[in-house]
């Protein structure tokens, strides 16, 4: 309760508001993520006391999870890797004139998940953090395998999903080897030593690819009249369980250091697709496909704070930056933070509850407003979208070569769209590739090259079994459906 008292001082509420507002703006801009925003703001905050600064940073962190949704839904440009899944069904909803409903359910889902995640953080952070330590290299490997298998379920064809996912993994091996530092597939080009950035590929495939295919279909994308500005009762009925499941999935996966919101969002999407009575609606504007991933990426943002606050180990890139900031404010992160800096930690947790409320209040009216933006025909929106894509990509590394990559992959995205290839698996393959490779090589070092390590450890074996089930059950079901027809 002392935490609430501390968080409710006018200064702290103002910081919280400022943080979530900034976070939302940053989330909208592709290219600037929350970690960059916090790093940019760091020098300005040195005059502040640590609690105020921490509240500001946390606000930016989960505010950005809201903001990324906006561009994903409206113009199919995910600003963050954790909103890639949202754009699949969210953008389809926008095309059907239901952008308001998509944004509204995302805001509500995020609020519920953020609140549940924060409560989880309050109640079970220390024991949960201990459990997360059981995740060693083999477990990370198996978790990534599970994620990759789930990728195949995105889109209309399993085969196409797998091919796109593997292409993403292969693209991820470009650049300098994460284990020993050898250059791979750099074609003698020094600028390729960094590999291909996630943001370049995402903006190209989703943003530019969509614009190109829109232009190619001469008759510009017909946008249905903006219908529901807010989610209807039926939307809510469909979404409430996905939100609940997404919250749990997001929190649990977010707790694991280094995986975070991205894996959480697509595990949530896949779970919803598998559980749906009519999975074919997914990819064509199913509201569950927005509600689940959106809830899970917000819950993951709270989950990622668990290892940070109770072990002093960063759970994601952004929490790592927050951790660095704490050190500069003279707070030494470690297992004793909950006791030695209790007032700071509780003020942060209280501010998260308040911040989520602010975001909901701010976003519900805005959802309607932004949805009306789409009454402007898409053909008029294309030039500003292209400008946003190019500016976002360039600002990432001030690299003109990245802009050429954007154009190249934009053409790839157009072709993929024309021939109905899913793009999300390719992007997520690229994101997961370094984690996949590093975890595999670390595991094999531990076992002196024996692959049995992946099945000998119970947690890892369990995750692999889930992956096998995810692959085999649909195949078996398919075989079962075909059998009677062949008899007939």
């Amino acid at each position: 309760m002392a935490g609430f008292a501390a968080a409710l001082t006018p200064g702290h509420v103002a910081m919280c508001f400022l943080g979530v507002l900034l976070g939302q703006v940053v989330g909208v801009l592709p290219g600037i993520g929350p970690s960059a925003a916090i790093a940019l703001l760091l020098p300005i905050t040195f005059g502040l006391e640590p609690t105020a600064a921490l509240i500001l940073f946390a606000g930016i962190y989960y505010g950005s999870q809201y903001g990324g949704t906006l561009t994903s839904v409206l113009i199919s440009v995910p600003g963050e890797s954790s909103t890639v899944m949202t754009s699949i069904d969210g953008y389809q909803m926008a095309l059907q004139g239901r952008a308001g409903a998509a944004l509204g359910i995302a805001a509500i889902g995020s609020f519920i998940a953020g609140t549940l995640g924060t409560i989880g953080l309050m109640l079970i952070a220390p024991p949960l953090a201990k459990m997360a330590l059981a995740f060693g290299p083999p477990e990370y490997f198996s978790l990534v395998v599970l994620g990759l298998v789930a990728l195949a379920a995105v889109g209309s064809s399993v085969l196409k999903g797998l091919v796109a996912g593997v292409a993403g993994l292969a693209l991820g091996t470009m650049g300098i080897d994460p284990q020993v530092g050898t250059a791979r597939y750099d074609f003698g080009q020094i600028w390729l030593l960094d590999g291909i950035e996630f943001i370049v590929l995402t903006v190209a495939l989703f943003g530019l690819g969509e614009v190109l295919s829109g232009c190619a279909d001469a008759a510009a994308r017909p946008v249905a009249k903006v219908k529901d500005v807010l989610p209807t009762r039926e939307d809510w009925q469909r979404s409430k369980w996905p939100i609940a499941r997404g919250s749990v999935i997001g929190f649990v996966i977010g707790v694991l250091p280094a995986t975070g919101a991205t894996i959480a969002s697509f595990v949530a999407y896949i779970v919803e697709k598998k559980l749906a009575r009519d999975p074919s609606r997914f990819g064509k504007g199913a509201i569950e496909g927005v509600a689940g991933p959106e809830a899970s990426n917000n819950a993951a943002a709270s989950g990622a704070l668990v290892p940070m606050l109770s072990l002093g180990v960063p759970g994601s890139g952004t929490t790592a930056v927050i951790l660095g900031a704490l050190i500069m404010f003279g707070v030494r992160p470690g297992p004793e933070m909950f006791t030695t800096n209790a007032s700071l930690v509780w003020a942060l947790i209280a501010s998260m509850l308040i911040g989520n409320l602010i975001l909901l209040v701010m976003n519900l009216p805005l959802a309607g407003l932004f949805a009306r933006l789409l009454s402007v025909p898409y053909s008029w929106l294309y030039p500003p979208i292209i400008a946003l894509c190019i500016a976002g990509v360039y600002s990432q590394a001030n690299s003109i070569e990245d802009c050429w990559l954007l154009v190249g992959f934009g053409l790839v995205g157009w072709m993929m769209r024309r021939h109905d290839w899913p793009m999300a698996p390719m992007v997520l393959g690229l994101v997961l590739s370094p984690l996949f490779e590093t975890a595999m090589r670390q595991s094999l070092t531990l076992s002196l090259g024996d692959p049995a390590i992946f099945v000998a450890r119970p947690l890892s074996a369990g995750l692999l079994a889930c992956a096998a089930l995810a692959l085999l059950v649909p195949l078996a079901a398919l075989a079962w459906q075909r059998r009677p027809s062949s008899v007939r």
Partner: protein
Amino acid sequence: MQPTRRSALALGLGTLALPGLARAQGWQPTRDVEFVIPFGVGGGADLMARVIQKIITDERLVPVAVNPVNRPGGGGAVGMAYVAASRRTDPNTIVAINGTTQITPIMVPNARTLTLVRPIANVMLDDFLLFVRADSPHQTAAAFAAAAKAAPARSVNFGTGGTTDQMAVTVFGRAIGAELNMVNFNSGGEALTALLGGHVQAVIGNPLEFMGQLQARAVRAIGVFRDTRFADLPDVPTMKEQGIAAENFQMWRGIAVPGGVNDAAAAYWTEVMRKVVATEAWKRYLKENVASEAPMFGAEFTAFLERQEKLYRELLGRPA
């Protein structure tokens, strides 16, 4: 004491001389400075860089913002390649360098070497300690060594957060005559997580990354790789006291600018770093993190780096 006073004096002169100097040479940062950290967030290099960034900001040593950017991977090679590739002549970029960025090119011929950047200043030396988890049966490095020697080859797993840690493990393994198995992580922080989770049995790392866990008694330090014990850890004996003939091993940490930067900008950054290492905040940081002061600039630093290169090559059995 002597070097401290001398650098304080140098700082005084530097402060007096700088405004004139800067005007004469006409170089000042022209946009926000990018501070490249070629290692993951949360590791020793990262913490150090962020403290330097805070000191630069607090003391207003640079008229623009200094933004830390992590480019982790490949034992520093990814970040060094980034500086060599995208920031080759940019005087508004500085990069955190250390022993790892020097060792990586020795191990991997196509990794970018320190010759592609221009070392400006050494700011500290860290020491190495052998850590085990608090519930480990081994109370001393001697007991740990005996157990490791008795175990089959490569059955004792060490987590390493970079190539320097790997070298320290090599030094230790050679001293006790056991073949140890090294599992490489992106940062000391990740290696620490693996130790806490029991995925590796031991870590050799800098006190810097482990102090929080040491104070919470989640890990235990059982041996020091230098001649004297630490004032802050009086109960942890040195390797030599325990009869382990491990060579002393320390890691330098410094700052460089990209290789193509002109003399005026290099002089500017040297002055900035002279001031940083003379601040109270920096000295407090070194004390808190159990590291040694060792300011070196210009030719002195270059000569030091050449000696280190020889030492590392000798240790790794890879003569030039």
